[in-house]
């Protein structure tokens, strides 16, 4: 936490991997300044290639969305809403409100992860700290995780980028964590908008922060951590102002494995029907 200096969970060394502690990210847009240091630190540490110099015209966001070569993405949201208790309007009468919200998006590391379930090679695994990790040397690039992620995070890296063909997403800096270091994005975050730490601590802290903000005029502050859907919560959760839709977050994400039962039932019924029909035609029309 800011003010804790080198004792902040964003700065101090830890043994979470050895101790099998579930860890998480709590990202708080109310303190984010939109510096994008997390994006750069992520790409630098993980040697993620740049993926094009395209100017978007969407506020200051020229990154667009998470993908195979973007594991942190700062959203720049311009909304006609009041931010907390800010005084708006030329005479402070609240007319013509406007706010600029920054939020650093990242892989959610779901409790029930669609990509992990879908991976046919066992390349995607859950680590000791509860994060979802793609083993790059195992992945053969089948692309099934891509359509199985309810948050649209993981993607296959296209040519001609380095290491193309495999599926990539945030690793939760598993390599750093194994050495007792903090993920690169959290380490560099100058305002600790991204907080890294024990999942249970962070959840408690996030609820406290929401309460604090609501008391201070941020009536639309809420936690985005879909625990009531089949995703059963995410390890990288967010505080958001307003609705999740505006942040490109699905309001009710579901892990696709819940569709397996009905789809397989239909498939088995089709199979049986097919066998019966073919036998029947040969029997009756022979």
């Amino acid at each position, binding site marked *: 936490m800011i003010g804790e200096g080198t004792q902040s969970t964003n700065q101090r060394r830890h043994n979470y991997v050895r101790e099998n502690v579930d860890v998480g990210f709590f990202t708080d847009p109310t303190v984010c300044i939109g510096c994008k240091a997390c994006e750069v630190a992520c790409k630098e540490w993980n040697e993620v290639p740049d993926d094009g110099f395209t100017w978007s015209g969407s506020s200051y966001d020229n990154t667009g969305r998470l993908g195979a070569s973007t594991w942190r993405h700062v959203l720049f949201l311009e909304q006609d809403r009041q931010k907390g208790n800010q005084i708006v309007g030329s005479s402070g009468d609240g007319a013509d409100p406007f706010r600029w919200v920054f939020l650093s998006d990242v892989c959610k590391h779901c409790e029930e992860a669609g990509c992990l379930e879908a*991976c046919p090679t066992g390349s995607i695994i859950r680590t000791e700290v509860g994060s979802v990790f793609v083993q790059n040397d195992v992945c053969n690039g089948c692309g099934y995780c891509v359509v199985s992620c309810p948050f649209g995070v993981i993607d296959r890296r296209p040519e001609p980028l380095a290491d193309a063909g495999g599926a990539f997403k945030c690793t939760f800096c598993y390599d750093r964590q194994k050495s007792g270091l903090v993920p690169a994005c959290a380490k560099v975050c100058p305002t600790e908008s991204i907080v890294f730490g024990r999942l249970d601590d962070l959840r408690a802290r996030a609820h406290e922060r929401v309460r604090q903000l609501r008391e201070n005029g941020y009536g639309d502050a809420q936690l985005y951590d879909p625990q009531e859907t089949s995703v059963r919560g995410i390890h990288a959760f967010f505080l958001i102002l307003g609705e999740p839709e505006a942040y490109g977050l699905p309001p009710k994400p579901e892990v696709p494995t819940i569709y397996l039962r009905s789809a397989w039932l239909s498939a088995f019924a089709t199979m049986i029907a097919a*066998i019966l029909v073919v036998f029947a035609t040969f029997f009756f*029309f022979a």
Partner: protein
Amino acid sequence: MAMSDEERLDELREEAWGKGIVRGRGVDVAGGPIPRRVGYYGQPLLKPPVWTWEIPVYFFIGGIAGMAALIALVSAVFHHLDRARMSILLAAIGAIISPILLTMDLGRPRLFINMLRVFKYQSPMSVGAWVVTIFGACSIPALLAVELHARHVFAGDLDQFIKIAAGSLVFASAFWGVLLATYTGVLLGATAIPAWYLHRVLLPIHFGTAGIGSAAALLELLGYRVAPLNALGFFAAGIECALWISLEMNKHGAADRALHEAQSGWIIRGGEIFSGPLALVLRALGFVPFAAISFLIGALLSRFGWLAAGKVSACDPEAVFASQEK
């Protein structure tokens, strides 16, 4: 499709260089100077499938091969050995082409073998990889055994043994074949893409039916103009008609509009018309080869249509929001 931003920009550039000034409107015109789009600047919430033409072709060929193995089994049971030989030949050819197509579509084809590191029942892709492999391991020896038996290469007990082996292998091929022809529906149905998962019950039926109909149609085109196959043709086209009607009736608004609107919608619709009503009418009028061709075109087209719809649907934030409204 509307003109893309980049095309429009190029046009603006040319105009600017030509006249020195541009009076026309730029890009992102909808809704005034600030783009107001659904979600976060209209960015896709989901990732579109990265699959290219190999996958729909694989769906098509895998469907034919799988269902051909079933037809081979039933033909053998009813002592149409000739038909069985041709069917198992189709199955074996399909069993060879299918993994090649699948491998071609991989980001890292050299690592195809990693598919067989693990078996995960909860991953249709893993199930499918094993099914394709086992199907190949059954149908290709089955073809060999059937041919050895049919050509009486060996005699006596050995031939008897080969006959039993051929029977078993054809039986196994048929079993894995029907799985191969239908699991692909689950593969698309159990994903996060609204246009797909909303129709996860329809997809296996559709893919299975298309597989039977295509296998029968192909056999007919290869000269097996027999009543059971004709009946299968009627049956498959009839089911496709019903599925088409069901798809047109069972709309989910914005959530699955990729199936009904735009290019992807028309590809699916075209596929359904070719393999459903058109094939049915042609067959009823007695133009059997044309009906068979129509059905095959429809089956292939529709596979492309479903992939295209998946791409459109994943990139449509409104579809995702609509599918999660409850």
